[in-house]
């Protein structure tokens, strides 16, 4: 039996960055918003014991319980898809704040080239530069158009940084100065400058100094404790929904979060979403929550899965390339990297902050000429200083035994005497990479799991080799005595942690035939349904995704308010 609840203005599915930003903006304007979150509610004080590598980083305290729901994976459609039984390649956040609670705080704007990737690539190199099966698209929004929303998001989060000499134009400086430079960062800075590159301190959501944002929310500065990614910040320094937008929404009196509420279907009739069906996980009761506007703001997989389960939008068909839901799933190409081992130089590798590092963008986007290269795009090159914790960080030179006396000795010797420089490669979309529903495996309710069909392509292998060479050269200039370079990409392996930068499946564009949402994240087919998050990226850039998710969320909030006033398609 389903209990029908009184109608609200807006219901959000999930309460992470996107829902939090939208809730704050809408409730300020007097709209009533309900946020349905399947995980628990959280507050900063809950992270009192957060400096626990085993509990948070290794046992995944803040992540979705895979026994209830996971994804299935295959490299291609000839392979049998099988469930991801334990965590590997990426992590799925759960609970209030979502992935925004456990993120590192590495915060970027995409390059102007990223938003017009297809047309700018063709313009410069000709249509033949793009392989036939590479389905990259323009976003339907330009950098200049999205810039004000980046600005708004960065002010809310108090992003710390300094100008990227090779990045897009900024209308305003960073709200707070760049983070402090560690010795390893200074080494990278000096070496890359000598090599003629353009290093800059990584933009960070960890907060370099005390900051009060335009909403009046004050936060303390980062202490560089080295426990960010996979952890909650016990200091409230790391920008996350729980210490930024959610308090603003709550203070209006117009926002209600319902934790332990798992949305099972989006309800839909006569071309409109009428609300959602959800289960209260504490009692098993089912509820219908009617709303004027439904905001689908879960992680990438949730967004695609709920649309497919609810029969909304045209499912993507990889054989014909038609349809849109599940199309252009992309990821991040991160194996082009090198680790340098220093015989007589130790660093404070245990200190750090999630969004701390030095970067060059000389090989990102189209900042370098690709005429004689057999790949497009590129990626940032970073020396990160996130804080190396001891269970996860036991780097030894290649050829060292992986256990026993030799391993112990080398891992202890190099734990503070090795540095890694890595490429964060952009991931292009392909016709054969997509998300759909698995025909065999189900979640705890008996609903099909989402299925990933994805592998690395020739473009990715070439990019990896290219980035590896650049990383190696930088470490050489930094004075490493021995360098291990990772050049081999291999097939995509779901069991190996790479990044939680999954993108696509409900992509943004200018044409309803080839995209699912317009540049307000409004569904072309269902005008009162907004699908917000990295699911709307047509392909992924050579940067971490959250800054762009934040900008798109502010744009979506503006769109929802416009829609509630006038109705109809915003484009």
């Amino acid at each position, binding site marked *: 039996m389903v209990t029908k609840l009184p109608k609200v203005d807006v219901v959000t599915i999930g309460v992470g960055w996107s829902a939090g930003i939208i809730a704050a903006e809408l409730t300020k304007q007097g709209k009533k918003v309900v946020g349905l979150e399947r995980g628990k509610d959280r507050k900063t004080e809950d992270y*009192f*014991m957060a*400096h*626990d*590598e*085993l509990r948070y980083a*290794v*046992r*995944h305290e803040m992540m979705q*319980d*895979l*026994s209830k729901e*996971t994804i299935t*994976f*295959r*490299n291609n459609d000839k*392979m*049998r898809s*099988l*469930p*991801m*039984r*334990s965590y*590997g390649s990426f992590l799925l956040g759960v609970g209030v704040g979502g992935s925004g609670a456990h993120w590192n705080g590495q915060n970027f704007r995409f390059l102007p080239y990223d938003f017009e990737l297809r047309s700018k690539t063709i313009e410069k190199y000709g249509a033949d530069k793009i392989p036939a099966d590479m389905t990259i698209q323009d976003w339907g929004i330009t950098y200049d158009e999205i810039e004000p929303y980046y600005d708004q998001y960065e002010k809310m989060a108090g992003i710390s940084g300094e100008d990227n000499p090779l990045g897009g134009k900024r209308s305003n400086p960073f709200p707070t100065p760049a983070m*402090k*430079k*560690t*010795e390893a960062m200074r080494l990278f800075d000096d070496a890359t400058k000598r090599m003629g590159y353009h290093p800059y301190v990584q933009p960070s959501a960890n907060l370099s100094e005390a900051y009060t944002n335009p909403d009046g929310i004050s936060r303390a500065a980062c*202490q*560089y*404790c*080295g426990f960010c990614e996979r952890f909650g910040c016990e200091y409230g320094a790391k920008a996350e929904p729980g210490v930024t937008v959610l308090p603003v929404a709550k203070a209006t009196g117009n926002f209600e979060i319902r934790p332990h509420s798992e949305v099972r279907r989006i309800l839909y009739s006569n071309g409109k979403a009428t609300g959602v069906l959800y289960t209260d996980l504490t009692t098993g009761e089912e509820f219908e929550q009617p709303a004027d506007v439904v905001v689908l703001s879960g992680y990438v997989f949730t967004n695609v899965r709920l649309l497919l389960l609810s029969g909304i939008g045209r499912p993507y068909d990889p054989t014909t390339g038609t349809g849109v839901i599940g199309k252009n799933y992309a990821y991040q190409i991160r194996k082009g990297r090198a680790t340098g081992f220093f015989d007589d130089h*130790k*660093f*404070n590798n*245990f*200190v750090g902050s999630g969004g701390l590092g030095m970067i060059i963008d000389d090989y990102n986007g189209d900042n370098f000429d690709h005429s004689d290269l057999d790949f497009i795009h590129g990626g940032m090159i970073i020396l990160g200083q996130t804080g190396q*914790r*001891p*269970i996860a960080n*036991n780097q030894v030179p290649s050829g060292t035994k*992986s*256990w*026993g*006396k030799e391993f*112990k*000795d080398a891992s*202890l010797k190099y*734990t*503070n005497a090795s540095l890694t420089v890595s490429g964060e490669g952009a991931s292009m979309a392909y016709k054969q990479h997509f998300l759909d529903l698995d025909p*065999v*495996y*189900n979640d705890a309710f008996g609903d099909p799991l989402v299925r990933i069909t994805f592998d690395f392509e020739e473009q990715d292998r070439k990019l990896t080799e290219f980035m590896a060479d650049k990383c190696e050269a930088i470490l050489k200039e930094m004075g490493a005595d021995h360098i291990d370079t990772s050049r081999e990409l291999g*097939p*995509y*392996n*779901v*069991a190996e942690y790479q990044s939680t930068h999954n993108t696509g499946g409900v992509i943004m564009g200018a044409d309803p035939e080839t995209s699912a949402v317009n540049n307000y994240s409004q569904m072309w087919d269902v005008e009162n349904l907004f699908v917000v998050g990295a699911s709307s990226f047509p392909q992924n850039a050579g940067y971490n995704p959250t800054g762009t998710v934040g900008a798109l969320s502010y744009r979506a909030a503006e769109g929802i308010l416009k829609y509630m006033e006038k109705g109809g398609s915003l484009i």
Partner: protein
Amino acid sequence: MSEQEKNAPLLDKRSSRRTFIKNSGLTVGGVVLGGALGSLLVKEEKTTTTETHVHSEATGTNNLNVALMYFTPEQYRITEAAAERIFPADDNGPGARELLVAYYIDHQLAGAWGMGSKEYTSGPFFPGEATQGYQGRQNRQQIFEIGLKGIEEQSLKTYDKSFTNLSEEEQDAILTEFADGNVELKGTTSAHFFGVLRTATIEGAYADPLYGGNANMAGWKMKNFPGHQMSYLDIIEKEFTVVEPMALNSQHKH
């Protein structure tokens, strides 16, 4: 201050601890010294280490956490011996035995990790490709049960002795066969079991002592990892600095 000088207090502490253990006359000397003497002592009387090490300085006589939640005594002894070979005592400091890694593994196996509570364990089961991750039916409790039994059987088959009575070299040879996937096991592979054992051993050496391993934070001390610290603002821009570690206990009980 040079790096060596900064390191000095820690080194002093280590050697004085070793001196203390040596002088105390406890048979854990075999563990600390390692090498031929260590293996002789272990071979002599297999229960010696189990009985004595819990009374060592590192453990403290009143460590009431030192008891078994999951393992049988035999499983415990094999795990302790195998973990010590994976992470042996050496000049850097204590090995898995003195760090109480086997107790850590025992306690972990008794709970969610051992039972795979947060993992997807529904069928159907198929072998899968290497890119698809673990697809077995067994949880870690079962993998340990199969793997530890396998270690003992392989030892008896090869040397006609229990694993805990083998020399260090013989133990290493058995474990290498497991790591290389050369030992036939029913329900899992020897390489998979060894991988889980190796991972758990590293965890037990470096997880916060609240989980029962990393006794006296000695794992962190060897690794120059300061554990739980509220702030590194004072050293973030500085050269390598040794910071005395603190455990979460200091946060909870202060």
